């Protein structure tokens, strides 16, 4: 029984214009201690997965499938149990650190409050956070806790969040778009942060990102998502060094160093999906079959890929 097992999960959002298929029959496994990445464009539904795992989805979301976390089905346990898992077992380093800290409360309070519910002695908790902050390469952490969020830089906020999450000693760390909207310099900082976390703490990490280089740097295995589906899963080197799926290829070609070849067309409407391959309209290797029949995932040279080519 693997550590985190996501099997055939679907997430639909009911909007006034109809139900939107955000995540479409996704399955993957993740082993203890490994760093697993999910990559894809924004809107591919990758962040929805993290929210599905932590059950943070809004009321208009319909989730089906199973998510096993150490033999617990996260989708079926009651709220109280879930609350105990959140933060302690699985904790989330949210995307947009700026928005994830309550602007009106001192950082200290926001850090400490978790310890209250966790029943950990506040002082202890704070101390551990301070330690954490220190070895996350931050100067005078004590001072930082006395401040309000708006007095920290983006990078510091992120470190603070990371420190919080780590200090709760979770077994699984979920990082949602850690590099979203960062300039290359702070990207570097984030990268160091994550390398550091991986090296020092060795948690299992689920990293959601659209940043291939970042993934390449820190992930052991990655899944590539397109239009709510996983199109390719495999060891990061396999997937990103010699991709199988046309979409993965396209992604790589779109990188500056590969000549910045844009991917034309746009993702299909998620309200009424075409019955063929979802990438059909944009694929340059498509065949008639792709238009009519949706491909299933097949295993091929160590990677799992969802394409008729294999």
């Amino acid at each position, binding site marked *: 029984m693997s550590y985190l097992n996501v099997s055939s999960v679907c997430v639909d959002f009911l909007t006034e214009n109809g139900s939107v298929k955000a995540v479409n029959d996704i399955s993957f496994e993740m082993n203890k201690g490994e760093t697993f990445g999910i990559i894809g464009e924004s809107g591919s539904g990758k962040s929805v997965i993290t*929210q599905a795992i*932590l059950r*943070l989805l809004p009321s208009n979301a319909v989730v089906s499938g199973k998510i096993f976390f150490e033999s617990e089905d996260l989708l079926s346990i009651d709220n109280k149990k879930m*609350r*105990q*898992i*959140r*933060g*302690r077992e699985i*904790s*989330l380093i*949210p995307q*947009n650190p700026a*928005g*994830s*800290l*309550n*602007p*009106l*409360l001192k950082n200290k309070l926001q850090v400490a*409050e*978790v310890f209250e*519910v*966790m029943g950990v002695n506040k002082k202890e908790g704070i101390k551990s956070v301070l330690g954490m902050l220190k070895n996350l390469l931050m100067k005078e952490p004590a001072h930082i806790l006395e401040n*309000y969020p*708006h*007095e920290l830089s983006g990078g510091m906020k992120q470190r603070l*969040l990371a420190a*919080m999450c780590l200090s*709760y000693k979770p077994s699984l760390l979920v990082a949602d778009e850690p590099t979203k909207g960062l300039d290359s310099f702070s990207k570097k900082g984030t990268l160091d942060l994550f390398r550091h976390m991986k090296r020092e703490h060795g948690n299992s990490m689920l990293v959601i990102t659209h940043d291939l280089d970042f993934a390449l740097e820190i992930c052991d295995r990655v899944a590539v998502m397109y239009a709510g589906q996983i199109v390719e899963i495999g060891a990061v080197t396999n997937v990103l060094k010699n991709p199988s799926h046309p979409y993965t290829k396209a992604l790589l070609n779109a990188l500056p160093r590969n000549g910045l070849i844009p991917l034309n067309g746009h993702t299909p409407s998620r309200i009424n999906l075409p019955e063929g391959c979802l990438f059909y309209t944009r694929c340059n290797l498509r065949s008639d079959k792709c238009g009519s029949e949706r491909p299933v995932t097949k295993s091929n040279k160590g990677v799992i890929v969802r394409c008729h080519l294999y």
Partner: protein
Amino acid sequence: MYRYIFKRMIFTAITLFAVFALTFFLMNVIPGGTSEMILKHTFIGLEESATQEQMVQVSARYNLNDPLYIQFIDWLKRGIFEGDLGMSFVYHKPVLDLLLLRLPATIILALSSMFIAVVGGVSLGIYAALKENKTADHLLRFLTLFGVSMPGFWVALVLILIFSVYLKMVPVAGYGSIENLVLPAFALSIHSLASIMRITRTSMLETLGQDYIKFATAKGLPVNRIISRHALKNAMLPVVTVLGFQMGAMLGGSVIIETVFAWPGIGSLLVNSIFARDLYVVQACIIVIVFLFLIVNFIVDLVYIYLDPRIRYG
């Protein structure tokens, strides 16, 4: 921040002066010469026409003979340096004493209505937000629609009709006891209560959509704590900003409500004095009302600064 406070003081002063001037000259061009109206309202009764000699005597007595601007300057001088706002023609006593007599009534009324409005509005607003799109929510929103749309004086009359006339639960009008306060305070609060509730609901929903709420959940905090510690404070900011306006609305409304309930406050004093051309009283009332309004808004700003660190340090 101190600079800001200073600026506010200056502005308050300017506004007050403008109000002084405006009302003074307004009052002096109102139909019915001042001296004549004083005569009619205090000595000879409305319908009798005043003889010249009578007018002269009055004008002399209340030195109304000087040109307007002189009167104005005198009045300002006395007002600022001697705290003497002039004599009430109708009540035969210094305006200041009159104000001190009437102010408490208005303040009690305004504060109790504000209290009802804030407590009721905020709690209902939060309730509605948490029950978004449930029946309770729809019902409350429907009611608030009425709350903001009903004319205050009408509400007042209907309340009197029900609670004083039919149920005989509270006295019709008057001043002095809690029973007297209930109806006016409620009638005056309804409008603000409704709009405060609306704002609370909207901003509460907005706040609940924020990432830090989601992160708080991800941290595994129980819902009630998330609401009380994270959502509430943020949701209150917009509410605080409107409190000032609401207070203004109430001061305005009190003019009518006090008249309906014969509540001996500044509002009813103002109305009567306008009709009776009690010049100095009218000015004083308007100035007091405007002053209260400015003060309240000032306080509100300070509260806001106090609540939001981004402004405090930014």
